[in-house]
Each structure stands twice: as C-alpha cells, then as structure tokens.
C-alpha cells in the first residue's frame, strides 16, 4: 500500500468530500466522524510518504499508469514531502478545534461546510503533491473556489470581501495559466521535470522570460505579496473563525511553496537568479512588504485584522528569503513555510476561541482575558513569541536563517526590515498582553469589582490549540534535524 501514498493523499479526502456531502442530507451527525477519519488517514499517508522520501529519495507516481510526459505524474521530494505533512496536520488540528464553532455558526449547513473544508484541503494537497504544471492549475482552481465559498460564509460584509478576493484570485490564477500556456507553446510539455529538461536551450527566449514573470505575478497575487495584498485583510477578517484558521495558515504558504517550486524545479535557480538578475528588485519589494505589513498592523485596533496584516508581512519574509538567491535564504524561506503555517494557525485558533466565548475580537473585547481564558491566552503568548522570534520557539530559527541569508547576500535592507518587523511585533503583541492582563483598570476608590470567573473555551477547542503551542516549541528545538535531514536535500546542489 505504501507505494499508493501519493494517490491516497488526494483521493481519500476527495471521496470523503462526496460522502460528507451526501451524509449532510441523510444524517448530519456522520459528517464530523467522516472528516476526522479522512484527515487522519491523510496525515498518516503524508508522514509515511515523507519517511519514504527520506529513506529512498524522490517518489514518482504515474496517474492512470501513463508515464510522463504523456500522462500526469506526482512528484514528491523533500520539499513537498515536508509541506504535505504541514498541510495535513494543520487541517486535522483545525477541524477538531473548529467543530464547536462550526456547529454554533451553521447549525443547518454544517454538512456543506465540512464538504467545502475538505475539498479545500484536497486542493491544497493536490497543489503541493503534483509534478504537472497544468494539474497544479486545476487544483488551484478547487482550492480557490472552495476558499471563496468558505470566506463568504461569514459576517455581513464577508460576501463583499470574498467577491474582491474572487476578482484578484481569478486574475492571479489566469496569469499562472497564461504562463503555463507560454511554456507549453515553446516546449510542448506540461510535466515540470520535463519542462526543466527542455528549457535550457530556450533561456534567451523572450517567451520563457514572459512565462516566468507572468507565473510569478500570478502566484504573488494569490499569496497577497505587497502591493497585491489588498484583498487579504478584509477577506480573512470577515470570515468565520473555522474558515479563517484553515485558510490563513495554509493558502498563502502553499502559494509560497508554488513559487519556490517554480524557481527550483521548473525554471532552475540558474535561470531565475543568474540569467534574469531580478533578485535585487524582488528582495526590495519584499522589504516594502515587510515594512508596510508591520506599519499597517500597528494601525489596527482589532485583533483579527492586525493578524492578517502580520500575515502580509510574513509573506514578505518568505518571498525575500527565497529571492536572496543563496542557500541560507532559501532554507529560511522553506523553514518559514512550516513555522509560519503553525504560528498563524496558533494565533487564529486563539481568535476562534475568543470569538466563541466573547463574540468579538476588537481590542476592547479582550479585557481581562488572561483571567478568563488562561489556557487560550497561554497558547497565544507562545504563538506571539514565535511571531516575534523569541527562542526557543520556531519563529526565531527561520528568522535566523533569513538574516544569515541576507548577510551572505549583502542585502542589509532586508536584514533591517526583518529586525524592524520583529520590533514592531513586540509592540503589537505586548500591547495586547497589556489589555488582556491589566484592563479593565480599577477606579482607584477601592471599589474593585470582583474578578470575572474563569470561563475557558470547550476542551475540544483548547486541546488542539495547546498541541499547536507545544509543536511550535518542539519544531523550534528540532530545527537542526529538520534542516539537516529534510530541507538540505530540498534545495538543489547548485545553489550555494
């Protein structure tokens, strides 16, 4: 069975999506057990696949039995093996944590919601596992379409924000498709490895240059790279907590993976970094993204929206790191995909718990939360420390690699932006700690109201959150192993 892992990763959630959809009409109570079982199988298969890759090297799976380039092939190496495990585990932890809030918010539409949820996970897994440039687009469509649906099922303004995202996302996907079309015209192939084999004689062709740039711009649009980020904050803020805590950690990170895959596998670093010499411009764009993301986050008086701007800044980290054009920067970018997915999940789950209990996420809703929800806030502190970059949480280590990469590349602007954004994060999070810990202030007359009793979110919401918080520290402690055994092999030898 182990040689079927790549197919199982996508087929199990896909088939269970249809089962959940039918169960939603027959017996609603079946939906949740089905989705948890399916996602557990996916986590198991993804870990099995990563172990196989570590042991035997690249796994190639021919769908329909047709060898590439005639048919579609799945291509799993250390890079996407790692990302697959992250996507699968985040999806599983989040669905368990989100059960209560889904039932609270959509009592009669839980079935369709779970269906969209697992279809989105299918799409993301499919994007990561595939070795075919067009197949990637098809899965991108599924992930995007389900994302629009999930994000639109929120507050009153959610449909409008989601519509905005739909316009931008569609343009991004079209750009990617156009780029693949250009590549197909000049090479005749859609398989990534095959395109990489056919491209070197064509590096001087203007069509290849255009294909690269269009693909990049499309992917940047999808990942909300500044200044193409305008759709993200509203879409994520107005969505329900169950949807935003799935989409915020995963979608942008998967798109960063696609960008790295484009650079490393399809176009090869020699073309992307040496032939084009666009590095400097893109890294400066990343610097602007980081600085603007941090400043815009500072201007928010609303926890969830503030976090969405931090997501925008984090995108800048990863794009900048990948485009530094050296090994340390690329390592930092790949490591940050893992870390950022986990820490974004952590803080968005915290927002989910707060919304579940307090029914709001503006700063004034947060008063006294340390006393009221100690476990949730404990996890929030770990998540915040990780975003700031305090050792031993994992956020520190990816930032370390990024800074080393910036130093090696001699790009001090990027280094300054990283440090600036860390300092701004300190301000952002300690401001929230202050509100949660000290406010409401007493009135100095000794008539203090008795402290609010503890009112923690349900156990099914707190336990996954605490697991994520522990993982944040564990990943930090085992960073060395992750880098030396996995990421080292994900980056081609040529990149130093």
């Amino acid at each position: 069975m182990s040689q079927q892992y790549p197919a199982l990763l996508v087929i199990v959630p896909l088939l269970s999506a249809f089962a959940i959809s039918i169960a939603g009409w027959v017996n609603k109570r079946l939906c949740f057990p089905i989705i948890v079982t399916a996602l557990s199988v996916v986590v198991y298969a993804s870990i099995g696949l990563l172990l196989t890759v570590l042991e035997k090297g690249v796994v190639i799976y021919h769908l329909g039995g047709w060898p590439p380039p005639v048919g579609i092939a799945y291509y799993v190496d250390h890079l996407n093996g790692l990302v697959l495990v992250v996507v699968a585990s985040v999806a599983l932890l989040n669905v368990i944590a989100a059960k209560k809030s889904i039932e609270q918010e959509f009592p009669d539409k839980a079935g369709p919601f779970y269906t969209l949820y697992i279809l989105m996970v299918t799409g993301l897994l499919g994007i990561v596992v595939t070795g075919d440039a067009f197949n990637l687009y098809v899965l991108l469509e599924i992930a995007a379409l389900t994302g629009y649906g999930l994000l639109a099922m929120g507050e009153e303004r959610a449909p409008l924000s989601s519509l905005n995202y739909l316009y931008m996302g569609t343009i991004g996907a079209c750009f990617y498709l156009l780029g693949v079309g250009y590549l197909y015209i000049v090479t005749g192939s859609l398989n990534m490895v095959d395109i990489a084999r056919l491209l070197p004689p064509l590096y001087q062709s203007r069509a290849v240059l255009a294909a690269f740039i269009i693909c990049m711009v499309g992917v940047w649009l999808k990942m909300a790279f500044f200044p193409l980020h305008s759709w993200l904050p509203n879409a994520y803020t107005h969505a329900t907590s169950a949807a935003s805590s799935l989409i915020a950690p995963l979608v942008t990170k998967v798109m960063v993976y696609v960008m790295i895959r484009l650079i490393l596998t399809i176009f090869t670093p020699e073309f992307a970094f040496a032939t084009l010499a666009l590095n400097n411009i893109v890294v400066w764009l990343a610097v602007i993204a980081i600085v603007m993301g941090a400043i815009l986050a500072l201007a928010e008086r609303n926890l969830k929206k503030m976090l969405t701007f931090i997501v925008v800044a984090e995108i800048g980290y990863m794009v900048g790191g990948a485009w530094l054009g050296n090994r340390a920067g690329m390592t930092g970018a790949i490591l940050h995909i893992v870390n950022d997915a986990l820490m974004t999940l952590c803080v968005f789950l915290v927002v989910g718990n707060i919304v579940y209990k307090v029914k709001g996420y503006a700063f004034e809703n947060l008063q006294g939360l340390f006393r009221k929800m100690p476990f949730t806030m404990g996890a929030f502190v770990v998540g915040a420390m990780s975003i700031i970059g305090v050792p031993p949480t994992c956020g520190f280590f990816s930032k370390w690699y990024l800074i080393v990469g910036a130093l090696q590349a001699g790009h001090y602007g990027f280094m300054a932006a990283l440090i600036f954004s860390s300092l701004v994060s300190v301000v952002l999070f300690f401001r929230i700690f202050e509100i949660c810990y000290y406010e409401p202030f007493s009135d100095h007359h000794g008539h203090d109201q008795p402290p609010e009793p503890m009112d923690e979110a349900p156990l099914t919401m707190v336990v996954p959150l605490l697991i994520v918080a522990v993982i944040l520290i564990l990943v930090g402690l085992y960073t060395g192993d992750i880098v030396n055994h996995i990421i080292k092999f994900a980056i081609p030898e040529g990149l130093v």
Partner: protein
Amino acid sequence: MKIIGLIITIITGAFLVYAAADFPAWADPNSPASTYLSPYFIENSMKDTSVPNFVTSLLADYRGFDTMFETTVIFTAGLVCFILLRISGGKEPETSHYRHVLTGVTVTLKKGHKIPESEDFERIDDLWTPPDLIIKTGCRLMIPFIQLFGLYVIAHGHSSPGGGFQGGVILGASIILLAISHDLRTALEKMREKVVAILCPIGVSIYAGTGALCLLLGVNFLDYSALASVLHVDPIAARSHGIFMVEIGVGIAVMTTMIWIYNNISSAGKYNQGL
C-alpha cells in the same frame, strides 16, 4: 485611478505582445507543441485505448486525472451556490395566489389561510403571466427529444464530438427549460432538491470511484486496464469501458449542477417561485 489601471493594462499587454514575438510561427507544423506530444496521442489513441476520438481518450484517460478535478470544480460551484444562497426554512410569503383553472379567476390568500384541497385550483407565482399553450406544449414535446439527444451525446463521446460535459449540459438544460416554460414548482416536482443535491456528489464519486476501484485492483489510480478482470474483456477494451463509466459520472454531475445552480439563483435561494 482609472488612468493607472489603463497604464498597467497597456504595459502588461505590450509585454505579452513583445514576448509573443519569440513564439513559433502561426500554425507552424514544426512547433514544439505539435511535434513533441501530439503525434503520440494521435497515433496511439486507438492502439492504447480503442477510442477513435483522441480528444476523448486524452481528456478521460491520458489526462483523466485533470478531468476528474474539473468535474469536482463544477460540483464545488454548485455547492457554493447552494451554501451561499439557500435560505432554509424560509418564511411563508405574505400572500399566495391561486387560480381557478376553469374560469381563470385568481384568488389571493393572506398568510395563514389555506384553500381546500381540490383539482380546480392551482398555485401560481406572484409575477404570473397567463400560460401560453403554444410554449407549454411545444416545450413538453421537445424535452424528451432533448434528453434523448443528451444521452446520445454522452454515449457517443467515444467516436464523435461529445461526452459527459456536453451531454450533461444538454440534460440539465432540458429540466431548466421545463422550469422556464412551466414554473419552478413543476420542475422541482420532477427533480426534488434533495435528489439533485445527492445525485451531484454521486456523479463525481462515480468518476473518482472508478479510479479508486483500479487502485483496489492493485494498479495505479485511474489505470482503467485493471478493470479487465472485472469486465471480462482485454485491457485495451477495458480502458474504453472505463472512459465510458467516467463519462456517465461526469454527465450526472454536470446535469445536476446546472439544475442546482438554476434553482438557487432563479428563486434567490427560497425555492418558492422561480423566474
């Protein structure tokens, strides 16, 4: 703002045109796109899959995995329409209208009142137009033939243009035609909401299930040749039959999605009265 948009559009367009100068010449038979893989598909489709229409074999076999997800995209579109538009347990409308069939007298009832069950009265929409005998009868005559043609298109995808997508759209259109020419209520009596909502995932699962069956029979996902042992034919013919099975699944999924989207949009999710 408009000016900036215009400038960006012009620059992007100019860039794409500039890049297109390095394309192979228009309709060049020696271009990579037509020499690299296309000859393989054209020459081997019949040999590999015994399907004379190589568009079908390419779509449903060589790259059948993409097509499965395209079908899933269609299912997702229907589901998103449902989830965003459908208002379940909608309130009873303020007034409802009934028409006495023999005399043509319209009775308007306020909320809470009911009309005794009888054959003489029929429920009509708020924006009711007199029934046009020619349109109603004409559509009633056409619909069976449209559906028959839809089935023909699905079944003949192997040797002529057609297949599950096109046939499914034709089948779906026949039910929508019924809803337009009569009213949404009549169409819903023929295809109830629950039936549509359950058939749609079943259609896509037929596709994915065929693939999973191959996987259970010990080969890769969607490798139809494994079906040979189940169908008692040779592996090449099994591929042809496998393609037919997934085309049926696609047909069901596309048909029901069309109806699902129409029902939700035309009644604004209330399912009480359509266009």
